[in-house]
C-alpha cells in the first residue's frame, strides 16, 4: 500500500509557490533584458500572466491548508495572523523604500533589474497578505454560518477565480469592463462584510486587542495599496502585475471587512459586559442543569446556585436558609457576610413590615420571590428567594445589596429560573438517595427472606411408616407461617404447623420465636396438651399485646398406629380415612397461643388420640389456603379442599401436596395473587 503523504500538501504548495514566483521573476527579468537590449526575448506576456495566476493559486492552497490545520483558531489568533502578515509586508516595503532613500541618486538606484526584483518581492508579499487575510476572513464570516452565507462565499470565490483570468480578456487596461468587474466584486465583498457574528463572543479585553489588530490591518492595507499604485506609471517595469482586477478587489474586500469589524467592535464595546453577563448566566444554567451527577451532591448544587444567583443579581452578600427535618433552620453558605451581620439582617427581615405573610413563619409559606427594604446601616435592600420542591418550601436564599431597590425585574426573572432549575436538581438528588436507601432495604429484606427460609426444615423427619411433604409461600418477602418436625424416637414423631397473626416482618419475628419454643419444649417429651400450655406461657412473655399464634400439633406413634392431636386456635386439619374413603376435618376445641396469658388457658386445651390405617392421609395447612380468593371474591374454602383430597387420595404425599397447591393456584387464577402466607404439610401413612 502506498500511503499518500497528505500532510505534504501544505509544504508542496509552499514549494510550488516559491518556484512559480522564481519562474515569474526569471521570465520578467529576461523580458526586461530583452527590452533593454532591444532584442525580442520571444516570451509572450500571457506567460507571465499564467505564472502570476499559478502563484495566486499556490498561495491560496497553502493558506487553505495551514489555516484549516489549526482549525481551533480563536478569533483573536486569526486576526493576529492577518495583522502580522500585513505588518511584515509593510515592514519589507518600508525597508526597500528606505534602502532607495539611502542610495539617493546613485547608479545602483537606477538599476532596473534590482528595482524589478524588489517590485516582485513587494508583489509577492502583498499577494500573500491579501490572500491569507481573505482566507482568515472566510473563517470569521462563516462563523455560525447559514446556508445562504456559504452560498454567498462560494459565489465570491468563483467570482475571484474569474477575476484572476479576467486579465486575458481585458489585457490589463482600465476600461468599462474592468470597472464593471470591480464594482461587482466590491459589491459582493461588501455584502459578505456584513457577517460579523463572532464579535459579540469576544470578551471586553479581547475586543480591545482585536481593535488594535484590525487597525494594523487597515493601515497595512492602505499603505500597500498606495504603494502598489505607485508602480503603475513607471516605465521601468515591463509588466504590471499589480493592476489586476483580482488584487484590487481583494484589497477592497480585506479593507472593507476590516473596517466593518473595527467599527462594529468599537460600538460593541459598551454593551460587551452585558453580553458577557448573559453568557455567564447561560453557563450557570447549564451547570445547574447538569449538576445531577453521581459525584455531586445537594450541597454542591446549592453552592452553584448561590454563585449563579449572586452573579446574576450583582448582590453584595447572600446566605441560604435550609429547613431541616426537625423544622429548625440551618444557615449555610454565608457569602461576603459574617454571622453577626447575618443575624442582624435576619432579625430585620423577619420583622419587616413589607414582608408578605406571617413573620413567624420563617421560611415563608408563600413561594414567590419578594424584594424588601431593610433598615440597616450598611445594606438597604434584600431579595428573598424561596426554594421549594412540589410547592413545599425547603429553604430560601436571601440576597442583600447596599443600594435601595437594587434588584430589578430582569435579575428576579433570572434568579427564579436558576432557583427552579436548582430545586429540580435537589429533588432529583433526594429521590436518588431515597431510591438507594430503598434498594438497601430491599437487600436487607432479601437477607431476612433467606434467614427465614432457613428456619423451615429442609428435611422432614419420618420413618417408613409414613411419607411427608411440605410447602410454604409468603405473601411478602417474609411471612408468619411455620411448620416443623421432630423425631422423639424411632417410632414417635412430632409435626407442627403454625400461623402468626398478621403478616410481613413482625409476623416473621414471632415465627422465629415459635420455632425456638417448639425446638426447646418438644425435647422435654411433652404431651401435645402440656406442650401447648407451656408454649402459651412462654409466648405470653414474648408476643406483643395484639398478636397471637395458632398451631396444630400431632404426635405420631407408628408402633401403635395412632396420632395424638391438639389444636391451639389453628384451622382444623384434614384427615382422609382410607376405610371410609372419606375425608373430614378433625373437630377439636382449642384456643390460640397468646390470647389468654394466664393459668386459665389450661381450661381451653383439648387433645385427642386417633388411630390410623394404611392409606390414611393428614393435611395440615394454614388459613391462607382456605381464605384464598378468586376473581369473583369467592374463597377456596374448607369444602373444596376436603373433596379434592378425596380425589387425590391414591397419590403419595408429595403428589397430593403438589395437586392441592396447583388446584389452589388454578382456583385463584393465573395472575391472581394470594394476599396471605399459605403453607401445607401432607402426611400419608403406609
Amino acid at each position: 500500500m502506498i500511503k499518500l503523504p497528505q500532510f505534504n500538501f501544505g509544504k508542496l504548495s509552499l514549494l510550488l509557490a516559491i518556484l512559480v514566483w522564481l519562474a515569474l521573476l526569471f521570465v520578467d527579468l529576461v523580458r526586461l533584458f530583452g527590452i533593454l537590449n532591444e532584442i525580442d526575448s520571444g516570451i509572450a506576456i500571457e506567460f507571465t500572466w499564467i505564472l502570476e495566476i499559478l502563484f495566486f493559486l499556490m498561495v491560496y492552497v497553502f493558506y487553505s491548508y495551514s489555516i484549516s490545520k489549526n482549525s481551533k483558531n480563536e478569533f483573536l489568533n486569526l486576526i493576529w495572523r492577518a495583522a502580522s502578515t500585513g505588518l511584515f509586508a509593510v515592514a519589507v516595503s518600508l525597508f526597500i523604500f528606505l534602502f532607495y532613500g539611502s542610495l539617493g541618486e546613485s547608479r545602483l538606484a537606477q538599476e532596473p533589474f534590482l528595482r524589478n526584483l524588489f517590485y516582485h518581492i513587494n508583489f509577492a508579499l502583498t499577494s500573500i497578505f491579501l490572500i491569507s487575510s481573505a482566507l482568515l476572513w472566510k473563517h470569521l464570516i462563516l462563523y455560525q454560518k447559514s446556508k445562504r452565507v456559504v452560498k454567498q462565499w462560494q459565489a465570491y470565490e468563483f467570482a475571484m477565480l474569474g477575476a484572476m483570468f479576467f486579465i486575458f480578456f481585458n489585457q490589463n487596461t482600465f476600461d468599462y469592463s474592468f470597472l464593471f468587474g470591480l464594482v461587482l466584486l466590491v459589491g459582493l465583498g461588501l455584502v459578505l462584510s456584513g457577517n460579523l457574528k463572532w464579535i459579540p463572543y469576544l470578551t471586553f479585553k479581547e475586543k480591545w486587542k482585536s481593535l488594535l489588530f484590525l487597525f494594523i490591518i487597515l493601515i497595512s492595507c492602505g499603505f500597500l495599496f498606495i504603494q502598489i499604485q505607485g508602480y503603475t506609471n513607471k516605465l521601468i517595469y515591463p509588466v504590471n502585475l499589480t493592476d489586476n482586477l483580482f488584487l484590487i478587489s481583494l484589497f477592497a474586500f480585506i479593507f472593507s471587512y476590516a473596517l466593518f469589524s473595527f467599527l462594529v467592535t468599537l460600538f460593541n464595546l459598551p454593551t460587551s459586559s452585558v453580553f458577557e453577563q448573559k453568557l455567564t448566566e447561560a453557563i450557570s444554567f447549564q451547570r445547574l442543569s447538569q449538576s445531577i451527577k453521581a459525584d455531586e451532591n445537594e450541597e454542591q448544587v446549592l453552592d452553584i446556585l448561590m454563585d449563579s444567583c449572586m452573579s446574576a443579581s450583582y448582590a453584595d452578600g447572600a446566605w441560604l436558609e435550609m429547613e431541616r427535618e426537625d423544622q429548625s433552620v440551618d444557615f449555610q453558605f454565608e457569602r461576603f457576610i459574617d454571622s453577626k451581620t447575618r443575624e442582624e439582617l435576619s432579625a430585620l427581615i423577619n420583622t419587616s413590615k413589607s414582608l408578605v405573610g406571617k413573620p413567624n413563619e420563617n421560611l415563608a409559606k408563600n413561594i414567590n420571590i419578594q424584594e424588601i427594604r431593610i433598615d440597616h446601616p450598611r445594606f438597604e435592600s434584600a431579595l428573598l428567594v424561596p426554594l421549594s420542591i412540589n410547592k413545599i418550601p425547603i429553604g430560601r436564599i436571601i440576597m442583600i445589596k447596599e443600594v435601595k431597590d437594587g434588584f430589578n425585574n430582569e435579575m428576579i426573572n433570572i434568579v427564579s429560573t436558576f432557583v427552579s432549575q436548582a430545586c429540580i436538581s435537589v429533588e432529583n438528588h433526594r429521590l436518588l438517595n431515597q431510591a438507594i436507601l430503598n434498594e438497601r432495604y430491599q437487600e436487607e429484606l432479601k437477607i431476612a427472606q433467606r434467614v427465614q427460609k432457613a428456619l423451615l426444615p429442609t428435611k422432614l423427619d419420618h420413618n417408613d411408616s409414613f411419607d411427608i411433604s411440605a410447602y410454604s409461600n409468603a405473601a411478602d418477602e417474609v411471612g408468619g407461617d411455620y411448620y416443623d418436625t421432630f423425631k422423639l424416637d424411632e417410632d414417635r414423631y412430632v409435626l407442627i404447623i403454625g400461623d402468626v397473626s398478621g403478616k410481613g416482618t413482625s409476623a416473621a419475628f414471632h415465627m422465629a420465636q415459635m420455632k425456638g419454643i417448639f425446638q426447646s419444649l418438644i425435647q422435654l417429651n411433652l404431651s401435645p396438651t402440656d406442650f401447648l400450655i407451656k408454649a402459651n406461657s412462654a409466648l405470653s412473655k414474648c408476643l406483643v399485646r395484639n398478636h397471637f399464634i395458632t398451631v396444630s400439633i400431632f404426635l405420631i406413634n407408628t408402633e401403635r398406629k395412632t396420632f395424638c392431636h391438639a389444636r391451639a386456635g389453628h384451622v382444623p386439619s384434614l384427615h382422609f380415612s382410607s376405610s371410609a374413603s372419606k375425608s373430614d376435618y378433625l373437630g377439636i376445641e382449642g384456643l390460640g397461643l397468646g390470647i389468654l396469658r394466664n393459668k386459665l388457658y389450661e381450661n381451653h386445651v383439648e387433645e385427642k388420640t386417633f388411630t390410623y390405617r394404611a392409606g390414611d392421609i393428614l393435611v395440615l395447612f394454614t388459613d391462607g389456603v382456605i381464605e384464598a380468593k378468586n376473581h369473583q371474591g369467592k374463597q377456596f374454602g374448607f369444602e373444596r379442599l376436603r373433596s379434592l383430597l378425596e380425589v387425590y387420595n391414591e397419590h403419595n404425599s408429595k403428589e397430593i401436596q403438589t395437586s392441592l397447591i396447583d388446584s389452589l393456584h388454578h382456583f385463584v387464577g393465573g395472575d391472581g395473587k394470594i394476599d396471605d402466607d399459605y403453607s401445607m404439610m401432607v402426611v400419608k401413612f403406609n
Partner: protein
Amino acid sequence: MLNIKGLEENGYHVLILQGEVDASNSVLLDESIQKLIADGNKAILIDGQGLEYISSAGLGVFMSYLEDFQEKNIDFRIFGLSEKVFEVFKILGLNQLMAIFPDKQTALSD
C-alpha cells in the same frame, strides 16, 4: 374497606362494623374500642351484621382488650356475625372467651 359507626342504644354503646377488617385497617377498630374504654363506657356492643371478613390482625384487636374488659368490668358483646366470620372466631377459640350472640335481640335480652 371498613366503616365504623357509633351510637347509643339501651344503655349500650354500639359500634357498627361494615366491610372487612384486615391488617391495614385494624388500627381503626383498635382506636374506636380504645376510645370507648377511655371514655369510661361500661357496656359495649359490636354490631357485626355488616362484617364480611376479619383477618387475624382484626381478631388480634378484640383479643388484646379481653383483659381490659375483665379488669374494668366492661360488658362487651358481639352480635350478628355471619356464619363465615363466626367460624373464624370459633376456630381461634375466641367464642370461648367472648360473648357472641346471633342477633341484637338475644344480645340485649341476656
